């Protein structure tokens, strides 16, 4: 491919360089993360439906939900769901700001992107601390 490109200057030139050509930037990473978290939340909706249906079905069905949520896997899924939800929400707010035409400067766009990442991790941890405190009060 490289040799051919040297011999024939007009052949095999990438007309539209794809992602691997560019240096990875935080805004690019967060762009795809927004899509990934969106897709995760799409399937994560099953989790909410399971909780609601189980609660509507009765104590036995709800007990199995509670059992699963207490397991390490259940906790990890719930933690991931929380982060995906918050990150998608903050990323969405960032996109709404961009949709209105603000925050496109080299400093602002980086600042906004870092803020969504730091904010999502911070709020997720905060929510779980509050969650555990609430559960502690009940027990």
């Amino acid at each position, binding site marked *: 491919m490289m040799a051919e490109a040297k011999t024939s200057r007009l052949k095999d030139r990438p007309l539209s360089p794809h992602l691997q050509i560019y240096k990875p930037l935080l805004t690019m990473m967060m762009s795809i993360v927004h899509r990934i978290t969106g897709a995760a*939340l799409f399937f994560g909706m099953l989790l909410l439906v399971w909780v609601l249906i189980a609660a509507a079905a009765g104590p036995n069905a*709800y007990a199995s939900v509670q059992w699963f949520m207490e397991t390490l896997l259940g906790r990890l899924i719930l933690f991931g769901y929380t982060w995906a939800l918050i990150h998608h929400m903050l990323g969405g707010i960032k996109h709404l700001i961009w949709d209105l035409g603000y925050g496109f400067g080299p400093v602002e766009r980086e600042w906004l992107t870092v803020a969504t990442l730091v904010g999502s991790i911070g709020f997720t941890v905060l929510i779980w601390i509050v969650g555990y405190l609430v559960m502690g009060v009940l027990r």
Partner: protein
Amino acid sequence: MTEDHRSMRTPLGRVLHLGSAHHGTRVFWHQRLTAVANVPLTIALIVIIIGLMGRNHAAVVQILGSTFVALTMLLFIVTSAYHMWLGMQVIIEDYVHDENWKLVSLMLNTFFSFAVGLAAVFAVLKLSFGL
């Protein structure tokens, strides 16, 4: 560009601004509309879920079935199901290039979003009306 005499678009089509899909920027707009609605609703959902943590079935039924919690949940479910339906449609259109697979994926997306939304709405209503 729109003045191009070779355009296939009729003058009426041009003034309606609806493009080849015949619904213009409606999907784009509804995606943003549901996104904005979901900001307060997601915060409310998190508060509700924290309130449910560690409680027994009877307490959970009472909380989820109460008027304002049920209404908030219903709003969240409807806007989210619609938002995720539109979002997944964009993802499918971007990555699934085979025409048949694209049609199948778009159909499955609609079935899934509708079923999940309806199941959640049904559960909340059942809890709320205590049937």
